[in-house]
């Protein structure tokens, strides 16, 4: 479910072409991304998604889940695009466009919160394990091993299954879905950050920092971490895509938001199921919304990874 990034992907390199001169790592990455069509497409999609999610209420005059026009919906027909509803109605008689717009907001909140949760917990675990493992000596290795074995156990459980279990235990509410999707991401971030920190721990500048008598904590936080965090940030961008899909999947399975007044892409798919023969757009439209959003984050994340990877710098 996740795209593996080589731990060394971000280790800034020795290249300094004329163009690179005078440019910091992140600013250089930004410049490279601006020249990359993939990055631009990804960024535009992400930007569009963000705008729709944030300014949704300005894009429609209806309320989500209102079922205002439920009288027009019959078992054999769902009204299609019309003057007042340019994407038609959904099967409960709400405005389809309004549902999609508000659904974007849901997806953004769920995606960001769950990824942020996974990132925070995962990166914290990874940083502790990696920091101790990199320069903590024998005791550090022990701490590293202990943490990573727990993470390995988490990793052994398929993420969707883990999410289903957590959602099942915590009950059907919006927090459980965020926690479920977030927890499923923890091992990815933990392993990624730990791996790159262990790699950076071998770097010459860490030895040099030791030769200056810097304290171990300072070396880990001030030197190893900043060099290791890049792949993790890229992974977070990529994980947003996965998180949005997983939230939709969990909602589809009936583990998501319980309030019918809240529009959610995954649930729109469920609702579309039994009308697929009469109004396929009910499934296709939210399907496209999910796919395009996930694609946007993936393209953006991939481009970011490439831009930061010294080996692909031209």
């Amino acid at each position, binding site marked *: 479910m996740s795209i593996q990034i080589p731990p060394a992907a971000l280790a*800034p390199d020795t290249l300094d072409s004329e163009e690179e001169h005078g440019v*910091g*790592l992140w600013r250089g990455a930004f410049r490279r991304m601006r020249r990359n069509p993939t990055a631009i497409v990804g960024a535009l999609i992400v930007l569009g998604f963000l705008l729709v999610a944030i300014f949704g209420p300005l894009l429609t005059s209806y309320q989500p889940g209102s079922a205002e026009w439920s009288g027009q919906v019959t078992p054999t027909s769902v009204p299609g695009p019309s003057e007042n509803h340019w994407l038609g109605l959904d099967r409960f008689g709400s405005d389809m466009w309004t549902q999609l717009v508000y659904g974007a907001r849901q997806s953004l909140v769920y995606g960001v919160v769950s990824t942020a949760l996974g990132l925070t917990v995962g990166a914290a675990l990874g940083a502790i394990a990696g920091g101790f493992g990199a320069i903590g000596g024998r005791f550090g290795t022990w701490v590293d091993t202990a943490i990573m074995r727990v993470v390995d156990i988490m990793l052994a459980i398929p993420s969707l299954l883990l999410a289903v279990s957590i959602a099942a235990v915590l009950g059907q509410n919006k927090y459980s879905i965020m926690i479920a999707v977030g927890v499923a991401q923890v091992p990815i971030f933990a392993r990624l950050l730990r791996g790159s920190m262990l790699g950076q721990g071998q770097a010459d*500048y860490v030895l*040099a920092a030791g*030769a200056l008598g810097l304290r171990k904590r*300072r070396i880990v936080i*001030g*030197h190893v971490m900043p060099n290791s965090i890049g792949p993790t940030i890229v992974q977070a961008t990529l994980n947003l895509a996965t998180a949005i899909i997983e939230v939709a999947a969990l909602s589809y399975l009936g583990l998501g938001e319980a309030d019918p007044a809240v529009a959610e892409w995954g649930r729109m798919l469920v609702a579309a199921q039994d009308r697929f023969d009469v109004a396929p757009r009910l499934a296709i439209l939210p399907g496209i919304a999910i796919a395009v959003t996930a694609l946007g984050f993936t393209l953006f994340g991939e481009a970011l990874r490439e831009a930061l990877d010294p080996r692909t710098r031209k």
Partner: protein
Amino acid sequence: MPEMTVQAEPTLGVGRRTDVLLSVRDLAVSFGLRGQKSVTAVDEVSFDIRPGQHVGLVGESGSGKSVTALAIMGLLPKRGVEVGGTVEYAGRDLRSLREQDMAELRGSDIAMVFQDPMSSLNPVVTIGIQLEEVIRRHEKVDKREARDRAEVLLRRVGIPDPGRRLGEYPHQLSGGMRQRVLIAIALACGPKLLIADEPTTALDVTIQAQVLEVLKELVAETDAALLMITHDLGVVAGLCDEVNVMYAGRIVESTTRARLFAAPRHPYTGGLLESIPRLDKPRGTPLRPIPGSPTQTIPWTEGCAFAPRCRNKIDQCTETSPALEKLADRKLRCFNPLPAEADRNGVDE
């Protein structure tokens, strides 16, 4: 800084002297993981450095120079590494110091300049911060004062527009500038001993000379003692008072610079000198390389490690291991040394 004793005749004494800054005795380092045969990288290494003295440690790749430096600094990994012998700094046994106490010494009393200026600087941290953090680690100064001192340091190592450079990242500087920054960082807290591990190897020849000049000036200015680790006899000639030549982890010849260049006694040292061009030989004289490669060694326990490549080899060389003998003017580990040419002219003593 105590007054330096200027000695007419450089001493080669092994005995403990009160004015010795660093005393290394029988240093031995071997690498090996459990269950595997360990490899001895450094053995029987002993030398002294007096305050302000410049000592060279010369040898080719793999001769144990860098390992010696890391062992002195206590920076070798703990696992799979065995260190023997003693390292005394200003009368304190460094090897029995607690890690925290050793960390206090590193960077303030004993500093080190590494070989590769690119990888020894953190690529994502500005050089200003990298300078300031050393100063603030060892001295009680606030951020502003640390920054001012960092700027002064950069100016002293000859970096133009230091105020602006402080905010730049290592990749924005040229190789020579980076090495100057490393020298500035190493000298930031006024160390009494500077260990320079091949500080110019990664640089262009023209830049090498500039960086050496900066190093030489600053070391002289600050009265720091210098342990110069190099494979380059030219660097030794320009910088060191005394020279220790290492081969396969042991010191094979140890004497003053003048004596070493005037009359090398160990065939390895002689070979090194003959393999570089000299102004006092006619032009076109072919250089005589040392035959073979450093991989052709025999363990010191079975004889002289240099024997397989040695022109002066005698039977004894592959039968017993030569000890480091103390002669009148040097220490030498050889059964059949080159002839003494004490009266040879042309080199100032």
